[in-house]
């Protein structure tokens, strides 16, 4: 059993109350920080801990906080991105349901690091339960004196609100999320200016993922070295919530050290492959990552190792496909998602995702031609020039389909049908 940090208080059937959270050391980090640590020191500890953003991009959290200049104008904002909408990803929901005060404390600490006066949790409509839990627990935290003005007599004031989205995948993109929060059509914007300089209502704004924020109280309480030592591989830091789904016996969220092997996650923690299933491939970190095939079955799951192998850990939402799953069909399904969710703002993404979807549909339904393969590769390349990161994410499964499963694609074309359909 590995150390449980984020899931320390997790219970099978209910949320952790504020009393239980405090009995297990909750809000101690906040008290220590507000009493003894300067804003600069907080940022330094987070930086030293090498906390990489858990929302998929793995951007160093400490660097992001430092990007808010010391003399930046007020008010400053802290936004928690709880718009988890990438297929396969559900860790943030589980985290909020398990231990909401961990997120609240993390937000107050991150807020303090940039002297934000307001925090906003941007949450998707599918997580209405989580939104209600957060609203209730924010009130409780306020009554306990952890939120509001002059927190614990420190002179620091911070308030928290929950903002409900109307539901669109692009709202998870930082700049689109800011537009959504400001009541505009949530199209992405290209920086500069960066949100940390001019974000919400043109004020400095930091946006962090739920899991990233949840790590912060533990880092502040136990130190940067402790956090770094949690990981199994050199250079990696901390534990990670791996959300595993698909053809495994025990789909769910597991907190494991970064650097744990994929084979161990599947066989030991997720209960192995379902009866009669053999591992064929997985998407290691949500729908916008590349298929990991059998040759990577023993890979160490951390950001750098996957990057070195030409892959991305993303959100560590592992979706497992078995030998009976048609990879063309799976990729077509992923493209249907991306084509539906493209915000339509720029042509390469709006038209390209539809075009790829159409070609994959034709291949899957026995109307494919060999010439589609170079054509798909070409369109994928064009999509890298789209306005935001949505389109490069969308083509990741397609490109890896053509890299690792070209034989399967060709079988569809030659047999003029899906070989997996009887």
């Amino acid at each position, binding site marked *: 059993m590995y150390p449980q940090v984020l899931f320390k208080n997790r219970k099978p059937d209910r949320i952790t109350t504020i009393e239980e959270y405090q009995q297990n050391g909750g809000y101690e980090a906040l008290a220590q920080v507000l009493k003894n640590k300067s804003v600069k020191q907080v940022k330094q500890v987070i930086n030293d801990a090498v906390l990489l953003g858990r929302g998929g991009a793995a951007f160093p959290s400490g660097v992001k906080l430092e990007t808010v200049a010391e003399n930046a104008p007020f008010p400053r904002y802290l936004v928690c991105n709880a718009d988890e909408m*990438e*297929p396969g*990803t*559900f860790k943030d929901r589980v985290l909020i349901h398990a231990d909401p005060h961990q997120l609240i404390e993390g937000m107050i600490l991150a807020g303090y690091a940039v002297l934000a006066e307001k925090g906003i949790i941007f949450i998707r409509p*599918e997580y*209405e339960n989580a939104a209600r839990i957060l609203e209730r627990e924010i009130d409780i935290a306020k009554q306990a004196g952890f939120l509001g003005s002059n927190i614990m007599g420190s002179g620091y004031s911070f308030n928290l609100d929950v903002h409900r989205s*109307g539901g669109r995948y692009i709202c998870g993109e930082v700049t689109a999320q800011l537009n959504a929060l400001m*009541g505009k059509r949530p199209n992405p914007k290209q920086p500069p200016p960066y949100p940390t300089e001019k974000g919400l209502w043109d004020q400095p704004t930091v946006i962090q993922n739920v899991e990233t924020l949840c790590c912060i109280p533990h880092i502040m309480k136990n130190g940067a070295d402790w956090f770094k030592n949690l990981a199994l591989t050199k250079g990696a830091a901390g534990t990670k919530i791996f959300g595993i789904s698909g053809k495994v016996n025990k789909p769910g969220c597991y907190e494991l050290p970064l650097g744990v092997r994929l084979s161990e996650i599947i066989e030991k923690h997720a209960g192995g492959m379902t009866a009669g299933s053999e591992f064929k491939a997985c998407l290691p970190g949500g729908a916008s990552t590349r298929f990991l095939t059998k040759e990577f079955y023993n890979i160490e799951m951390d950001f750098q190792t996957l990057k070195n192998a030409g892959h991305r850990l993303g959100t560590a939402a592992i*979706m497992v496909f078995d030998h009976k799953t048609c990879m063309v069909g799976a990729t077509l399904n*992923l493209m249907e998602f991306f084509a539906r969710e493209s915000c339509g703002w720029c042509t390469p993404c709006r038209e390209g995702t539809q075009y790829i979807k159409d070609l994959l549909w034709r291949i899957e339904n026995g109307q494919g031609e060999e010439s589609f393969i170079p054509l798909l590769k070409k369109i994928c390349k064009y999509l890298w020039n789209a306005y935001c990161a949505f389109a490069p994410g969308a083509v990741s499964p397609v490109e890896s389909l053509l890299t690792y499963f070209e034989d399967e694609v060709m079988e569809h074309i030659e047999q003029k049908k899906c070989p997996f359909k009887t």
Partner: protein
Amino acid sequence: MLPIELKESLKTRIEQSSHPKELVVDVMMAVQEHYGYLSDEALDESAQLLNLPPMELEEIATFYTFIYREPVGRYVIHVCDSVVCWMNGAESIQDYLCRKLEIKPGETTKDGLFTLLPVCCIGYCDRSPAILINKKVYGELTPGKLDSILEKLRKEAE
């Protein structure tokens, strides 16, 4: 017309907000909740409350999955069709619902009770195949489970 109480509570929230525009989705959702969907009239009323041109709300309303610009049934069933649910039988769940309710995706039953809409990943991949009904999740679905859910909702609506 919106009931005075609802109108007043929304007005108060708008007045108290330092940035009223941030309430666009909240207001449209609350108005939609009252009417069942965001009709043209409801959209105009939302725009008036927020003091924004209706067209500005229209471009936001039509963007979001959970704002309905056309009438929907009392229960909106969102069937998750993303890759994990797809792998675990989402298509047969949708087919079963279509047969049972005698509608196609996007349609509403004759009695006005159920609307069926496909939706992107709802974040319950560990309990797939899963659906949302009025934002409440139902997972690990089987035809038998679906039958009892529909039955329960029908009784609740009586």
